[in-house]
């Protein structure tokens, strides 16, 4: 044993002091594991709750190098934790279990585990776990490993290569060599992770699609993308994650759209403060979208907005919350804050479109319902996300309306639309409750989407849009104008897929809805802030159309002018813009 221990130390210093987070609900095992890890000279933090582990990790992504987790835990399934960690923080995770059943091992692998150890764990096995850290770093940092100097020595280059297709091995080898030379500088010990913004991801996806998903190779993708400072390694690791992600979601979700860019990005980018989540507008996420309301979170994809509106979207709002931080519509910190778990959103929400479920939105929602959306809307500047949850499907309308308020920033345009629609519906149906959910909401939704897409840029405005009840018709228009400007800026609603899918459908109508709902997560977290920074800009043209159509609607809705509800938000939005 002593000899082995010395081996640890002898290597480059790197494995020594590696920071491990150990998670196991069994105190005995945890204690033993901790001791074993100490024996390997790692720096160990332990917790017996998965939730706590996630918190620790989210608190500071760079605090740990590796996570070891038990599979059977009472508060959260180990595999789930594994997924979350892999997606949000991109840390290597090792599973630990007393189950030697191959299907568990398989599950571990498909969920992205770097390794699967059986209990009782032996120290020999732990002595080598540092290889996973190096491997991971190589993939994403292009050769900058923690140990800096140990690149060459690491026996992982094969692993890296093996990761990709075998046939690409040679190419990788070459690339690795080149890159290793380039990156030999000791100062960049651990290169900052490349943030896959929506735009970047969009390019990535476009390149992948162009090359053909199966045949896409990092080098070619990189060339096609033509982005400076992006390395092949970055692309390779992103591609791998992307593939894993797609596989996973196609397995898990119903109607998952392969394009869950947003979701993917969210997950892969780990939602750093939601802000720049390049929410790929992932159409993928929209699946589940029950009613088109899928408000797509701000991220360029309009999806958020849409999702919020849909009943199912409401559930998705949860995901939306993540964006709050980015300033998305969640302006309502209280409400939105709940959603906020961006990190968890993406993953969780893949349940088929119920993104909003569980969103705190309650406040807003209730209000809306009671007031028939009138006053409430005005009042809810932030409650945005909350709508969905409380609203039954039938209340899409309401929800939608409610949303506008809540997420003033989110959907500026679309709120307006909604309101108009709702009101007209309401007026016509003279029902205090929402108009027939079915079609109305759908139509609303589509409008919303349109609007929202154009509005994406807007959401980022400060979410505290003080709904101004007194808003008159002109406001919306003004708003739209503003949106137009914004939209030109960069709204790329579907950054990734949206553009693919939505555009194809012309207007963001049904597709958008679908998309929106499917991607609860995307909308929210990603990127509100990103959007502002020019995320959007994709669909200027179509946005214009949307805006125009919405505007027309508004105009025709003379009655709605009262809609304090809607406009209030817009006015503020305008300011944001």
């Amino acid at each position, binding site marked *: 044993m002593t000899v082995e221990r010395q081996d640890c130390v002898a290597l480059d210093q790197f494995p020594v002091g590696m920071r491990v987070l150990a998670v196991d609900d*069994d105190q*005995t*095992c945890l*204690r*033993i594991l901790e001791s074993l890890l100490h*024996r390997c000279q790692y720096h160990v933090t332990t917790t017996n709750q998965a939730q706590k582990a996630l918190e620790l990790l989210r608190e500071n992504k760079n605090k740990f190098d590796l996570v070891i987790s038990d599979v059977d835990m009472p508060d959260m399934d180990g595999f789930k934790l594994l997924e979350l960690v892999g997606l949000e923080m991109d840390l290597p995770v090792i599973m630990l279990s007393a189950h030697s059943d191959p299907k568990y091992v398989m599950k571990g692998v498909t969920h992205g585990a770097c390794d699967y150890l059986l209990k009782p764990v032996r120290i020999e096995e732990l002595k080598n776990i540092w290889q996973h850290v190096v491997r991971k770093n190589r993939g994403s940092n292009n050769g900058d490993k923690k140990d800096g100097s140990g690149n060459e020595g690491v026996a992982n280059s094969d692993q890296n290569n093996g990761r990709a297709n075998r046939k690409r091995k040679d190419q990788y080898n070459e690339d690795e060599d080149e890159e290793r030379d380039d990156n030999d500088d000791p100062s960049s010990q651990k290169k900052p992770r490349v943030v896959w913004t929506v735009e970047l991801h969009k390019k990535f996806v476009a390149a992948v699609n162009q090359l053909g998903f199966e045949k896409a190779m990092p080098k070619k993708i990189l060339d096609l993308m033509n982005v400076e400072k992006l390395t092949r390694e970055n692309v390779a690791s992103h591609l791998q994650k992307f593939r894993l992600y797609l596989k996973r979601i196609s397995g898990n979700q119903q109607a998952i759209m392969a394009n869950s860019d947003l979701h993917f990005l969210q997950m892969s980018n780990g939602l750093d403060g939601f802000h720049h989540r390049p929410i790929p507008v992932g159409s993928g996420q929209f699946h589940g979208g029950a009613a088109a309301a899928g408000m797509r979170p701000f991220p360029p994809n309009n999806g958020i907005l849409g999702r919020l509106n849909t009943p199912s979207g409401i559930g998705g709002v949860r995901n939306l919350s993540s964006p709050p931080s980015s300033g998305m519509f969640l302006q309502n910190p209280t409400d939105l804050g709940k959603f906020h778990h961006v990190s968890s959103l993406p993953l969780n929400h893949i349940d088929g479109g119920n993104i909003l479920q569980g969103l705190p939105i309650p406040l807003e929602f209730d209000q809306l319902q009671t007031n028939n959306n009138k006053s409430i809307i005005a009042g809810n500047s932030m409650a945005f996300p909350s709508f969905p949850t409380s609203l039954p499907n039938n209340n899409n309308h309401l929800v939608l309306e409610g949303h506008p308020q809540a997420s003033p920033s989110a959907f500026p345009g679309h709120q307006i639309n909604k309101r108009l629609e709702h009101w007209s519906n309401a007026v016509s149906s003279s029902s205090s409750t929402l108009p027939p959910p079915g079609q109305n909401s759908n139509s609303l939704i589509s409008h919303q989407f349109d609007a929202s897409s154009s509005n994406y840029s807007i959401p980022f405005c400060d979410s505290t849009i003080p709904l101004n009840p007194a808003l008159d018709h002109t406001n919306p228009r003004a708003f739209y104008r503003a949106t137009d400007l914004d939209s030109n800026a960069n709204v790329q609603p579907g950054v990734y897929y949206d553009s693919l899918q939505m555009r194809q459908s012309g207007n963001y109508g049904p597709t958008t809805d679908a998309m929106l709902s499917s991607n609860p997560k995307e909308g929210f977290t990603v990127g509100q802030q990103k959007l502002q920074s020019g995320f959007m800009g994709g669909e200027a043209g179509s946005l214009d159309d949307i805006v125009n159509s919405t505007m027309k609607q508004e105009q025709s809705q003379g009655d709605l002018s009262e809609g304090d509800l809607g406009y209030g938000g817009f006015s503020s939005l305008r300011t944001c813009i």
Partner: protein
Amino acid sequence: MQRQVALIKQSLFDQGYLDEQFMELEELQDDVNPNFVEEVATLYFKDSARLINSIDQALERGSFDFNRLDNYMHQFKGSSTSIGASKVKTECTMFREYCRMGNAEGCLRTFQQVKKEHATLRKKLEHYFQLARQAGPKETARRSK
């Protein structure tokens, strides 16, 4: 005294109460963790007592939710394996088999065995640790393989 301690430990192994895993734990004990093994053993008994209680209650209720029982036992087995409680582990495995078969009576019977082995081991280990402490730290230090 020291010899006595060593002998006792040896007999525990010989009789199959403990297995190699226990030895691994001893390896981990050093100056930094002079009482590591004892600490872990204490933790184990505390945890497992809780589990045993839960299982007892579940069995008493008579509802025989095999899944649940199996889960408990899985946990119990996991920790028993970690400290090298060999006989306990064996009984746990049997219990789980009966669970899988849905054999309630088998479960009850085996569980009694589990408890018995568990209690026996506990006593023996307590005795062992006590002696070891008396004999001085050296005795509990790394056991030559």
